[in-house]
């Protein structure tokens, strides 16, 4: 026990506090320890790149959440209908979770590249004016990250909802059917409202994945074209390790930390309360 608490205390909490402290200093390449006030935060929120990163994060999070949850629920409900080959289908929907974002990002980068990828496929099929250049288009590149991200994580939401649906007692569904409810009503009015905790869990996990998303962007766009697909996690590492602005990057890391904490702490608190109630 002691080793676990000690290691986490030092390497998680101690380190976060260190980062917090550094974010209030004027550290460049090497950390300096005299306090400098909130200058780094002022600089951060005045930086165009950071604002683009936050903007991208909001777009990505919203779309990522919506698509993952909708696809996940559809797949879970459909798979719940005594489907033949359910095991095989489930395996297919979930396998992206076993792969790294670098592996899948490499694949998507190849699929989405305009010269030899999907665009060429459609042109060769006779759609001569077909264009699909999102990957190299400043305005659209962020949506390619959504496509790859949803592809990777939708199966996870499916697994959560399938587990949730399977834990509902058959009696409830049977009783509703005897009362004349059709399948649609059963799901819409009875089962989905019962899945509130699963919605909540999916929301927390997906938001937290999207705030932390880093690998996928590195593999797919490196934040480009230009800086159009920068996200906070990428901003932080670039500022720290390429631009050597340690203080500024610490400030951006703390912003990320607070965003995650704002979502996670209420979640952990409610989970703990639920467990205590049992």
């Amino acid at each position, binding site marked *: 026990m002691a080793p676990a608490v000690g290691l986490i205390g030092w390497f998680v909490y101690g380190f976060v506090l*260190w980062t917090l402290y550094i974010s209030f200093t004027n550290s460049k390449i090497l950390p300096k320890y005299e306090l400098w006030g909130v200058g780094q935060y002022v600089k951060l929120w005045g930086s165009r790149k950071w604002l683009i990163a936050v903007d991208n994060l909001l777009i990505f999070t919203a779309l990522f959440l919506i698509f993952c949850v909708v696809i996940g629920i559809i797949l879970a409900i459909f798979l719940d209908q005594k489907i033949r080959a359910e095991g095989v289908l489930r395996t297919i929907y979930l396998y992206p979770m076993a*792969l*790294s974002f670098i592996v899948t990002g490499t694949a998507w980068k190849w699929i989405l590249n305009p010269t030899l990828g999907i665009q060429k496929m459609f042109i060769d099929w006779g759609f001569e004016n077909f264009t699909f250049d999102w990957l190299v288009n400043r305005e659209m590149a962020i949506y390619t990250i959504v496509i790859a991200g949803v592809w990777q994580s939708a199966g996870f939401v499916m697994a959560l909802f399938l*587990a949730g649906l399977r834990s509902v007692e058959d009696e409830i569904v049977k009783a509703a059917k005897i009362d004349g409810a059709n399948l649609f009503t059963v799901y819409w009015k009875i089962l989905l409202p019962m899945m509130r905790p699963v919605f909540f869990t999916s929301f927390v996990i997906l938001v937290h994945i999207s705030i932390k998303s880093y*690998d996928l962007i590195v593999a797919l766009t490196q934040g480009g074209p230009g800086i159009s697909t920068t996200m906070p*996690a990428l901003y932080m590492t670039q500022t720290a390790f390429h631009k050597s602005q340690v203080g500024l990057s610490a400030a951006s*890391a703390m912003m990320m930390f607070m965003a995650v904490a704002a979502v996670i*702490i209420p979640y*952990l608190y409610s989970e*703990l309360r639920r467990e205590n109630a049992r």
Partner: protein
Amino acid sequence: MQDKTHSSYKQLEQKSKYTNMFLRWFLYFVLVIFALYFIFPLYVMVVTSLKTMEEIRQGTLLTWPSGLNFDSWLVAWGGRGYGAGDTFLKPYFWNSIKMVVPAVFFSTFIGAMAGYVLTKWRFKGDKWVFLFLLFGCFIPYQAILLPMARTLGVLGISNSVIGLVLVHTVYGIPFTTLFFRNFYVSIPSELVKAARIDGAGFFKIFFKILLPVSTPIIVVTIIWQFTQIWNDFLFGSTFSFGEAAPIQVALNNMVLSSTSVKEYNVDMASAIIAGIPTLIVYVLAGKYFIRGLTSGAVKG
């Protein structure tokens, strides 16, 4: 009268049979479409890796390769055999193995111990300690990268496999503790109490009573940790470069280094090589993988 209702009932039954059949077809149709969408990138990866660059330029993403041509796999794994600038995955694959095995072992062991204490040697405030550890699952690692880089430097293990083992062990503990704690909570404490009365010590109880029944959760934990650590890119790319890099970092460098002509077939073969260990584990032990995934999310 009697007859009429009977026939209309039959009609109704017939009709609902048709709608039912239509619904079933619709169901399978949607499920298969999604299956194709999920399979598509993997299919493209595999066929592209088996083509020559000439075939790639002439066909489309979906075109079947002309034959089983593993040349790009050999290049991805072992290089082209000329000196400078010839990057290939083999040494990095071994780096990853050397990193994963000890990191999985240590994090699993420490997590098992912590889970054991939290459930069987309960103390005042243990819930808070659990919460304290659990929060570590979620912190954005950006908030610890800078001090970690300094610490590894001070310890003299920056840019080394040992450094990465330390990092992955430490940040794996919250997950492994969560798994074991949730597993041990469901094991009756009476046995432990009885053993304690008989004078069995802390370690003896763990090894004689809990460990023998822990196989499923050990499997879940090992698979989870293996997948996470093998797939990690953030720590690997921050704390190592050059020769000490793990495979994901090497893959990314290979794909990004566009010195001459882009060889997509080699890129795809490299991506498959980097992904195959976790994919095999997933196919063989999917049940345990999913259990890890869902219990990583649904606590208690």
